């Protein structure tokens, strides 16, 4: 199989009969707990009831009206922690497959050509959205529904942020995303791709250019070196660079470095899991997951951890990387590790790993991915009016996303730190409502 076949398409979702069977199992709860558990108010209680009562188009409308990335959320939400966690049917047998139903309904809408949105009567006010990830798209969609003229500035050649350039295509592919994006185009949202808002006080410029409000949703694309000192060791990637390269379909270039080789991925979160799985799919001989705490402490979901274990990834837990060793050419050839053991709980209330003196050892590797967390891009200077916290995250009012009285708003990962697609969607919606309210006053 070619690389492309391994990577380009995600698995099929459920079909009509399966969705109806699930809707038939639904208990149609009063004050549906699933609806209350959805961070973006997608309202599964209502859309499943609609499906049950043969109102399929209405079900699709409920999803998309509440969550313009309803398809993406149906695919990507960790539902066992969100809506499905609260499902009453668990008391009888198992939760209703809410994410799957949601994805099905959205895809079914595309299949029958059902359009939820129509272009609204245009208003004169222009709004700028910086960053085209889930938060930016949601904000843009919500404003466009009300007739505002929205321009989304996207750094890369296509919109989408992490769901286009981070999440591997075998989990969320381009074809699916293209269908979902169509709604934004239909609503009249403008995209300026290959446009990074930068330079001193980039946001002020937008405000001076006639945009009445700005929504900042640049996500977390800055890197933090794992090992202090000069970087640029050949064969060492950050997770962002590695996953972006995959989403840019640079399979040959990566394949050359990985196929038949030894790969180490450092980290224990969901992003690390995406990296080890991708390395396996690229044909690595051995994939090591290096993590300084224990298996049970990994932030990644349990099913993700088990899935990659099943793929044959070697888990090197209780090991802390200390240095890279390189060939004379400058290419990495080993990872120096030190064993750790768990001591008393730290601030995250997880037991803290402490190094075991004298236990250093070397793991021979040809390729390393550092998946140790994302942080804000330090190169960007938004505006003196935008306040940052210690971690460099933008400080915004949680009720409205407002950052400054100059009608600057923010949401998504840049405010929350690493979070979820569905939370970014909600931030975009909340800010859009606040923006519309502010603009209708001026």
């Amino acid at each position, binding site marked *: 199989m070619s690389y492309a076949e391994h990577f380009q398409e995600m698995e099929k979702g459920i079909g009509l009969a399966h969705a109806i069977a699930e809707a038939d199992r639904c208990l*149609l709860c009063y004050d549906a707990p699933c609806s209350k558990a959805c961070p973006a108010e997608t309202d599964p209680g209502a859309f499943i*009831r609609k499906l049950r*009562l043969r*109102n399929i*188009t209405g079900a699709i*409308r409920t999803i998309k009206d509440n969550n313009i990335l309803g398809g993406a959320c149906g695919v990507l939400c960790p539902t066992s922690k969100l809506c499905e966690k609260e499902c009453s049917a668990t008391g009888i047998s198992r939760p209703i497959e809410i994410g799957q139903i949601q994805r099905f309904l959205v895809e079914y809408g595309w299949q029958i050509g059902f359009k939820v949105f*129509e272009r609204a009567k245009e208003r004169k006010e222009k709004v700028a959205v910086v960053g085209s990830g889930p938060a930016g798209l949601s904000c843009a969609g919500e404003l466009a529904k009300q007739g505002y003229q929205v321009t989304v500035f996207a750094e890369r050649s296509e919109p989408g942020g992490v769901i286009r350039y981070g999440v591997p295509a075998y989990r969320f592919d381009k074809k699916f995303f293209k269908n979902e994006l169509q709604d934004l185009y239909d609503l009249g949202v403008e995209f300026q791709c290959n446009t990074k808002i930068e330079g001193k006080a980039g946001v002020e410029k937008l405000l001076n250019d006639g945009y009445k409000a700005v929504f900042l949703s640049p996500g977390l694309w800055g890197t933090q070196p794992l090992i202090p000192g000069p970087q640029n060791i050949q064969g060492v990637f950050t997770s962002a660079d590695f996953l972006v390269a995959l989403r840019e379909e640079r399979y040959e270039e990566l394949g050359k470095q990985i196929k038949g080789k030894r790969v180490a991925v450092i980290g224990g979160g969901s992003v690390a899991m995406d990296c080890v799985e991708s390395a396996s799919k690229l044909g690595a001989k051995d994939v090591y997951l290096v993590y300084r705490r224990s298996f049970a402490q990994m932030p990644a979901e349990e099913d993700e951890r088990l899935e990659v274990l099943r793929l044959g990834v070697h888990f090197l837990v209780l090991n802390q990387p200390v240095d890279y060793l390189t060939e004379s050419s400058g290419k990495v050839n080993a990872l120096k590790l030190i064993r750790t053991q768990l001591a008393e709980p730290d601030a995250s209330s997880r037991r803290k790993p402490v190094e075991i003196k004298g236990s250093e050892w070397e793991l021979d590797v040809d390729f390393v991915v550092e998946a140790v967390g994302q942080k804000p891009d330090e190169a960007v200077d938004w505006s003196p009016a935008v306040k940052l916290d210690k971690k460099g995250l933008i400080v915004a009012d949680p009720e409205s996303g407002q950052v400054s009285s100059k009608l600057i708003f923010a949401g998504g990962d840049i405010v929350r730190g690493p979070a979820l697609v569905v939370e970014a969607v909600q931030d975009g919606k909340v800010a859009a409502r606040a923006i519309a309210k502010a603009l209708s006053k001026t």
Partner: protein
Amino acid sequence: MTAKNIDLSVDFAGVKFKNPFLLSSSPVSNSAEMVAQSFEAGWGGVVFKTLASGRWPIVHPSPRMNPYHYGSTKMMGLQNVEQISDRPLKDNLLDLLYLKKNYPDHPIVASVMGFSTEDWQYVAKAAEDNGADMLELNFSCPHMTIEGSGHKVGQAFPLLEGFTEAVKKVVKIPVMAKMTPNITDITEPAMFAKKGGADAISAVNTFRGISEIGRDDWIPKPNIFGVGAESGYSGPAVKPVALHFIADMAKCKGLGLPLSGIGGIETWVDVLEYLLVGATTIQVTTGIIHYGYRIVEDMAEGLRDYMASKGINEVTDLIGKALPNLKETDHFDLERQGRAEYNYDICIGCGQCYIVCNDAAGQALEWEAEKRRPKLIEDKCLSCMVCSFVCPVPGLITFKEMPKQWQRNETAVMDPSLEKELKYERFEEVDLKT
């Protein structure tokens, strides 16, 4: 597909409703507080729980309902022995006044029942004087504890005509007669109602039925302290029969009255079907007992989207549209025949088709045990299509018309050698064409 410009409003016997969805007369329309809640949810109007004069005391048996479940499906049907309203007439009238004041754009139909001519006239007048926009005469409750009332009147056509006429004499608002399904030909009582001056017909009230019998005590349910009774059965289980009553009246040449369809309505698809056979408004009880007032949202939204997809802007354009296609069975073209067509590629191998075809149809399927697949012997297929009714995979089994020269194999005789023992003389065949 835009659902924005769609008009769901109807003119029904001169009364304007913003949509054709009405609560039917029952516990769902028992008080102003409840009805107000339903209007907020989107219902277009109400047929208020049947009012009585108060001269005869009304007491509800306890308990008063029993469900008919089908597998994991709850409440396919519902049986009840509830009586007409047990509230004092004065309270009901105050509630009508409240609704009239607060929801002037939601017409109120007052359901009424009397136990003598004067009694009918008294309740009817009281309802009209206190805000009713229309009356519904309850000739159809099948389990009144007061002798000779309810559907006993609906089954005695001249009585029905007489009471209708008596009510018409004392009120100016339109009067609708509610029919019982517990008769043979519904057009007969409907014509009597018309002669009495009715302006519209609603149908149907509940069917006499028995939903369940206690397995330990053999007492039919609902079990009223040791006694069961045949009583009103409603819900999705009765819809196909109720639908035919509406169609019959819509096709009845002499009748020509607007119709309000009732029986088993839950979804917009049900509503659509009632409209297509000639109803102008529809009424719901059991669907609300099952799901609450909220179902109206799905009725309205589903119907709007459907109409948008068909390019139909006014709901009135749907009324009666299936009637020209609804004929007596002698109109069938029996020359044209078909059979089932299988798409084996999507088969999941459950084998339910094989079971039913073998036990209840043409025995036209073979079973390939290794592959777990059915195989159709095409010329044995009766085209009854029962296999497709049980198949869990949509689109796997479809109906396909066959060319004229195609021949179906006669069902084989088990043992032709028995012919020598046969006592039989062939009857001359009738030529249907002459």
